[in-house]
C-alpha cells in the first residue's frame, strides 16, 4: 500500500525533521568524541543542524502548502515563527557552549533540539492534533531540560513546570475535545463557520483551549509558574523558554484568532484574552520592581512583553500581526542578548543570574555593560532600539484598531518597567566600593552572540524588517 502523502507533504516537514535528525546525530557523535572536546562537538553539530533547518524553513517562505490534509501549513507566517524559534535555539545552544565546565551536554542539546521541533510544529500546526503534538513535544523536552542540572532550584522548577503545565494542557485538550464536539472537525480552518458564532459548546471549547495557550504565553493569572521556572532552570533553558515557547504558543494563538474563528464572534471570544493581556502589562512590570535575580526579573518582564505583543494582535488587523512578529523578533534578540551577557559574566555556575554581580560591571567589562544596556533599554522601549520602534508600531495598530485602553495600559506599564530595567543599568555603571574587582573571563561564544544581538537590536530600529504578505498565507 502507499501512503496518502505526497512528496510536498514530506518536504513541508523537512526543516523540522532535519533538526530532529540532528539531535540523533548529536547523540551518536557524543559516543565517539573524546572526553574534553565533546561539548564543543555536540554544540557544533547542533548549531550546524539548526542552521540547516533554518535555511530549509526559510526556503519555504512564500510557498504556501497545506500538508497532511491541512494539518500542517507552511509558508506565510509559519516561516517567520519557525525562524524566530531557530534563532532562539541557536542562541540558547551557544549558551550551553559558553557555560559551565566541560561536561556531557549531548543529551541536553538533543532534548533542546527536539523541543525546538515541537515549537516549530506548533508554528505550523493547523489542526488541534498537530497543535497538541507540538505543544507536548515542546513541553516534555522542557520538563527534562529544567531539571537537568543537579541543583535543588533546577529540580524544583522542573517539578513546578511539570505539574502546572500539564494541568494547563489538560484544559487545552479538554477544550480541543469540546471544539471537536462542536464542529465535528479538528481542522482550525473548519471553525470559521458562521453558525458556530452562537454555539455555546464551541464557545466553551474555545475558552478552555485558550486557557492552555494563555498559560504557555504566561499571562496573568496563568503566569505564576514563569518567575519560578525562569529562575530555577539553567540559563540556556531559560533563554530558550523565554523565546521559543512563547513563539510557538503565539503562532498557535495567531492562527487561532486569524484563521479559526467565525468573524462575528471574534470580538466576544477574545475579550478575556485582551483583558488578561492588559493585566499582564501592569502586573508583569510591577513584579519586576524588587527583584534581585536577573532570570526572575526577565521572567516577569516576559509576562509584560507578551502583553505588549498581544496588544498588537488585538485589532485582528493584518498589520497588527506583522507588528507582533516584528516585536517578537526584536524581543527574541533582546532576551537572547541579555542571557548571553548573563552567561558571559557567570563562570561555571549561575553568577550571571545574581544582579549583585553586575555592580560596577562597566568599569571591568565596559563593552559587556554597553551591550547589556542596549538590551535593557530595548526591553524598556527606549531608542535607538527595536523595542522603541516595536512599541510605536504596536501603539499605532492598537490606536487604529480602537483599543485605546490597551494602549494606555501599555504606556503605564512601560513607564513602570523603566524603573526596574534602569536599576540594572545603574548597578552596572555606578562606581561603588562594594563592586567585585575580579575581572570576568572572556567567553568568546557568549560575547559574540551578545554582540550580534546588540547590533541586530539597534539595526532593526533603522531597517524595520516587518515581513510583508504574511496574512494571505495564514489559512
Amino acid at each position, binding site marked *: 500500500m502507499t501512503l496518502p502523502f505526497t512528496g510536498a507533504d514530506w518536504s513541508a516537514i523537512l526543516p523540522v525533521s532535519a533538526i530532529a535528525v540532528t539531535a540523533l546525530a548529536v547523540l551518536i557523535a557524543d559516543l565517539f568524541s573524546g572526553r574534553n572536546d565533546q561539548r564543543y562537538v555536540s554544540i557544533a553539530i547542533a548549531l550546524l543542524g539548526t542552521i540547516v533547518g533554518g535555511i530549509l524553513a526559510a526556503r519555504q517562505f512564500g510557498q504556501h502548502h497545506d500538508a497532511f490534509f491541512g494539518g500542517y501549513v507552511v509558508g506565510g507566517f509559519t516561516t517567520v515563527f519557525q525562524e524566530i524559534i531557530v534563532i532562539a535555539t541557536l542562541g540558547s545552544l551557544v549558551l550551553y557552549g559558553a557555560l559551565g565546565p566541560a561536561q556531557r551536554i549531548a543529551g541536553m542539546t538533543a532534548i533542546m533540539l527536539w523541543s525546538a521541533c515541537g515549537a516549530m510544529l506548533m508554528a505550523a500546526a493547523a489542526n488541534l492534533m498537530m497543535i497538541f503534538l507540538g505543544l507536548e513535544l515542546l513541553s516534555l523536552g522542557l520538563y527534562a531540560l529544567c531539571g537537568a542540572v543537579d541543583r535543588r532550584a533546577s529540580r524544583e522548577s522542573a517539578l*513546578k513546570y511539570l505539574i502546572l503545565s500539564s494541568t494547563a494542557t489538560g484544559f487545552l485538550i479538554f477544550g480541543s475535545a469540546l471544539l471537536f464536539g462542536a464542529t465535528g472537525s479538528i481542522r482550525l480552518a473548519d471553525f470559521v463557520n458562521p453558525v458556530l458564532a*452562537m454555539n455555546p459548546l464551541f464557545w*466553551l471549547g474555545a475558552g*478552555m483551549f485558550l486557557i492552555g495557550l494563555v498559560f504557555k504565553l504566561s499571562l*496573568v493569572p496563568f503566569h*505564576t509558574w514563569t518567575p519560578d521556572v525562569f529562575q530555577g532552570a539553567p540559563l540556556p533553558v531559560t533563554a530558550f523558554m523565554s523565546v521559543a515557547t512563547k513563539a510557538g504558543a503565539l503562532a498557535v494563538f495567531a492562527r487561532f484568532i486569524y484563521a479559526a474563528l467565525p468573524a462575528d464572534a471574534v470580538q466576544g471570544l477574545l475579550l478575556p484574552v485582551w483583558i488578561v493581556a492588559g493585566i499582564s502589562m501592569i502586573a508583569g512590570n*510591577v513584579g519586576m520592581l*524588587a527583584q534581585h535575580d536577573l532570570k526572575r526579573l526577565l521572567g516577569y518582564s516576559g509576562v509584560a512583553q507578551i502583553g505588549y505583543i498581544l496588544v498588537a494582535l488585538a485589532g485582528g488587523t493584518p498589520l497588527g500581526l506583522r507588528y507582533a512578529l516584528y516585536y517578537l523578533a526584536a524581543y527574541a534578540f533582546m532576551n537572547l542578548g541579555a542571557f548571553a551577557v548573563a552567561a558571559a559574566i557567570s563562570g561555571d555556575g549561575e553568577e550571571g543570574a545574581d544582579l549583585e554581580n553586575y555592580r560596577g560591571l562597566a568599569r571591568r567589562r565596559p563593552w559587556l555593560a554597553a551591550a547589556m544596556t542596549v538590551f535593557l533599554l530595548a526591553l524598556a522601549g527606549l531608542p535607538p532600539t527595536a523595542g522603541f520602534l516595536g512599541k510605536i508600531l504596536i501603539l499605532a495598530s492598537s490606536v487604529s484598531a480602537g483599543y485605546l485602553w490597551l494602549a494606555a495600559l501599555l504606556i503605564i506599564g512601560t513607564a513602570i518597567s523603566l524603573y526596574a530595567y534602569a536599576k540594572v543599568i545603574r548597578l552596572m555603571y555606578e562606581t561603588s566600593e562594594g563592586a567585585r574587582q575580579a575581572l570576568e573571563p572572556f567567553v568568546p561564544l557568549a560575547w559574540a552572540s551578545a554582540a550580534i544581538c546588540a547590533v541586530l537590536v539597534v539595526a532593526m530600529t533603522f531597517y524595520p524588517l516587518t515581513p510583508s504578505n504574511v496574512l494571505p498565507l495564514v489559512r
Partner: protein
Amino acid sequence: MTHHLLGVGGTYPLLLALWLLPLAGAVVCWAFGPQLGRLAGWLVAGLVAASFVLAALSWGAATQNAAGMLGANQRLVAWMPGFDFGLLLDPLSLIWTFIITGVGFLIVFYSLGYMEGDGAFARFFAYMSFFVFAMLTLVLSDNFVGLLVGWGLVGLASYFLIGFWFERPSAVAAARKAFVINVVGDAGMMFAIFLIFAKVHSIGFGDAFAAAGTFAPALLFGVCATLTIGAAAKSAQVPLHTWLPDAMEGPTPVSALIHAATMVTAGVYLVARCAPLWNHSPQAQLLVGAVGGVTALIGAVLGTAQWDIKRILAYSTMSQIGYMIMAVGVGAYEGGISLFFTHAFFKAQLFLGAGLVIHALNNEQDVRRMGGLWKRMPFAFWVMLTAVLAITGVPPFSGFFSKDEVIYGDLQFGHPALFAISALTAGITSYYMFRLLFLAFLGEYRGEVEHGHAPGWTMNVPVAILVAPSVAIGGALMSGGESAPWARFFAPQFGAEMAAVAHRPPAISEGMTSVIVFALVIIGFIIAWWRYATTEAKRDAVPRLAGETAHMPVVLTNLFYVDAAIDLVFVRSAQFLGNFFGRMLDPHVLDGAVRDVAFWARWLGAVVRSFQTGLVRAYALILVFGATSFIVYYTFATYGMRH
C-alpha cells in the same frame, strides 16, 4: 502741537562720538584698570570733557528748527517693524547733556583727589564713565525703548557706585535696595511701552506724540501713570524714595553726580520729554504734580530730622526734585527744567563742599560731631554758604529765579494747593539748610579729629568753578519772564504749552508770590538761627543736640514708616511665599505626589509577588481560579448574546 521729534533717519555722526566716548573710557578703564593706575582718572575726565565740548559744538544743530524738525538726529538700528532706534539732540536733551558732561567733568575731576589712594581707583572711574554713557543714552534716545535702556543702565551704574565699597554690608544692602526699586520703575515704564506700542505700533517718541491726541483718555492716563512709576522710582518720589538716603553709602562724588545732579532728575526729563502726552491728560498732570508736591514736602520735613550731613542733602535733593517733578507735572516745563539746571550746580556744590568736610574729618558725616569748621576750613564754609543761599532761593542767587518760576508755575497752571505746599516747603528748606550750615560750621568743634588731611587743588578747583553758576546763572538766564534767554531757548519746544496758559493770569502776581515765599524763607532762617546759632545755643550745643536727638518725634525717626511698610508688604511676604513654596509645597506636596506614585507601584509589585508563595498547589489554585473565570465568561457570554 510740536511734531518736532519725527527726525528718524537723520544722520549726525558727532552725536555718536559724543555718546560713545564715555563708553570707550569705561571699557578701557575696566579692562586695563590696574595697568592704567592714576591715568584712568585723567582719561575719563578727558573723555567726559571731550563729549562736553562736542555737545557745545552741536548747539547749533540741536537748536535748529527747520521744517518743523527741531534738533539733530542720528539713526542707529532697526530691530523689527516699529522698533527703530536713534539718537536725538534737541534743546531738552542738550540741556541735560550739558549738565551730564559739564558737571560730570567737574565731579570726575574732583574725584581725582577724593578717590586718591583708593584700592579700586580705576574701577571707580570705569563706573563713573559708564554712568555718563548710560545717562547720555537715556537723554539722547529718540524712542521709549532706548530711553528704557538708558534708564536701566544708569540704575546699574548707580548700583555699582552705591555698592562701590562692597565689603561694607550696609553699602551692599543699599545698592540692592536701590537696584530693585529702580527695576520697579523700569517695569512701570515697560508697561507704558506696551500700552503705547499696542496703540501706535511704534516705540518712537515722534509716532507716540503725534498720536497723543487720538489716545482714549483712560489709555493716556494709564500711559502717563505707568510712566510716573518709572519717574518716581528713578527720581526718588514718594513712595519709592526710600533708596535715595541709603544711596549715600556711595562715595561723595557719586552722590553729587548721580544722586543729586543728574540721574535722579531723569524723572523730570521723562515728564518733560513726554510733555505732549501729559498735556492731553489733565488727570495725569494732577497726579504727577501731586506726587511731586508731596515729595517736596515730605523730603523737606524729613530733612529737618537728620544728623548725617549727606542724608540731610539727600532729603533736600528728594525735596528739590519733588519741586521739579511738580513743576513739569503741572506743565511749567521751563520752570522745572530751570530748577533742575540750577539745582545741578548748587546741589553738586553742596555735596562737594560736604565732601571737602567729610574728607577733612576722615569720613566723619555726623553734624553733631562737627561745628566751628569755618575757622578750620573757610573755603568750604564760603562754598557751602553760597550754595545754601542758592538752594533756599535768596535773591539774586540762581535758586531764587528757578524756584520762583516753579512756585509761580503752580498758580499759573491753576494748582493753588500745590502753590501752598511748595511755598511752605520753601520755608522748611531754608530751616534745615541753615540748620546744617550752623551745626557744621558755627559754634565750637565737637569732634575728635584734630587735623585730617586737607583737600588738594583737584578738589578745590571744581568746587570753586561751581560757585559761579550757582550764584549767577539764574540771574543771567532766567530773569525777565517771557523774554528771558531761557524762555526763548525753550520756546520752540514748550512754546505751545506756555501760550496755552498765557491767557489765564493767576490771582496774585509773580512779584507777590516771590515776596510770600521769601518771607517764609526768612522765617525758616530765623527759626534755624534761634535754635542753633544764638550764643547760648552755641555754648551748650552738645547737651542741646543730645536732647533734640532724644526727643525727636518717633514718626520722623522712623521716616514715616515707609521703609517698614514696604519691607512688610513686599519683601517679607515674598520671602514667606518663597519659603512656603520652596520648603513646603515643592518637596512635600508636589514631589510627594510623584513619590507616592512610585510607592504605589512598589506596593502593587509587592501584591503581585505575594502570590508567588512558591507552593505549587497555590499556583495551581490561582491557575484554576483564572480558568474558572474564563469558563464562566465563555459559558454565559453566549447566553448574554442570545437573550
